[in-house]
């Protein structure tokens, strides 16, 4: 890392001197001292450079992007027109609901898709999920029909936790958690039907995983038994 005396210190030499300046000043030798003093002096000069001023109007510009969309939406439509739009939308919705209610029941109705992003609450789907849930629980507990009243209420799974392995145990804890969430839904003044559907779907999924885990462990047990025999 030597550098001759007729040129500026090379990059490596400077790196070492900067280390002496910043990290290890105790290791500074008298030979290095003058140049390290130069480096210190330069650092001080950099720190003494005056602060830049700024145009106070920049704040308005800085906040404009966040404030603009809200303001523009409101300012684009005059208030009297906004109320008319809202009233028209309400009338349309009420007539649509009325028409659907007046249709003869029992026949399949082709309900138009109102919004693809927000699926409508469907009582049939919920009933189907409850049925699936009940069937899966029967399968797991080995009990007959009527043993589990899995109607529209939360059920603490009457499953035996003693013999379960880690996967099964974690699935059962999830099931307990889902049941608790379903139970809490009933406590709310206005039940969120969509959320209820989602929770029941989760319940069915977890129960299905439990059945699969049980089948898997049964297979393993069977193969162990056959091997030992």
């Amino acid at each position: 890392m030597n550098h001759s005396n007729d040129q500026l210190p090379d990059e490596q030499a400077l790196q070492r001197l900067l280390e002496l300046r910043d990290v290890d000043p105790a290791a500074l030798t008298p030979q290095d001292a003058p140049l390290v003093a130069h480096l210190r002096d330069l650092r001080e000069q950099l720190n003494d450079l005056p602060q830049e001023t700024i145009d106070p109007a920049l704040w308005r510009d800085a906040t404009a992007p966040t404030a603009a969309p809200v303001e523009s939406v409101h300012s684009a439509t005059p208030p009297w027109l906004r109320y008319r739009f809202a009233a028209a939308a309400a009338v349309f919705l009420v007539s649509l609901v009325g028409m659907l209610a007046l249709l003869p029941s029992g026949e399949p109705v082709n309900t138009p898709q109102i919004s693809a992003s927000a699926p409508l609450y469907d009582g049939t789907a919920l009933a189907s999920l409850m049925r699936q849930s009940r069937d899966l629980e029967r399968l797991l507990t080995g009990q007959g029909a009527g043993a589990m009243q899995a109607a529209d209420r939360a059920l603490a799974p009457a499953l035996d936790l003693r013999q379960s392995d880690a996967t099964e145990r974690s699935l059962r804890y999830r099931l307990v958690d889902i049941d608790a969430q379903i139970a809490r839904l009933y406590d709310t003044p206005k039940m969120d039907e969509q959320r209820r559907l989602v929770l029941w779907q989760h319940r069915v999924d977890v129960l299905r995983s439990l059945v699969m885990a049980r089948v898997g462990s049964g297979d393993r047990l069977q193969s162990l038994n056959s091997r030992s025999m």
Partner: protein
Amino acid sequence: MSGFDVRLPELLVRGVIAGRRHDQVRAYEVLAPAIMTLATRILQDRHQAEEVVQDTFVDVVEKARGVRTPGAFVGWVKRVAVNHCLMRLRSPWHARREALDEPDAETAPVSAGGYGLDPQSDSHAQRTLEAALGQLPDDARAVLWLHDVEGYTHKEIGQLMGHTTSYSKSQLARAYQKLLAWRLAGERAASGATPSRQGTQSEPQQRSIAGRTSTPTPA
């Protein structure tokens, strides 16, 4: 001294985090000059620096609620500002503009005596240093400012720039190499010698600085 070496009242920071307009304005008043200084020094372009101030405060307004500890707020703002600066340095637009703005040998500022000011005055020294900063390569200048003024470590700078710690060290050494050359040129010009153009030190100037150096021992 870094303009970010300020301590904002906790109540004010909590107000900014909560999205209170009045507190946002006060935080802007305190921190905007620091951001402007940081961005001007790194980008060497006042217009881009103003954009950095704007973008940083848009982030402050929109994302400050993510700051968990009020004590970390100023550091967070500084980091956001640094990131905006580095993003601009990396942008192809910046690279293209830099290529166009490359100073030629005839128009490049001389190291000293070229500003019509008293070479002994602070103002002259500052303008010379600012001019020298402007002549540094982008990364070297950014590392120099972040390390020596803003107090970032080489490791932090390496992470911010997407490079290694040694890259940061090497850029700092490169920046000082050029600054020392400038300084020497300035000293010589002040003492009556013909001012030399930056980056082209004559042999006597090189000897002058080398006279102060020792032969470093291997690390």
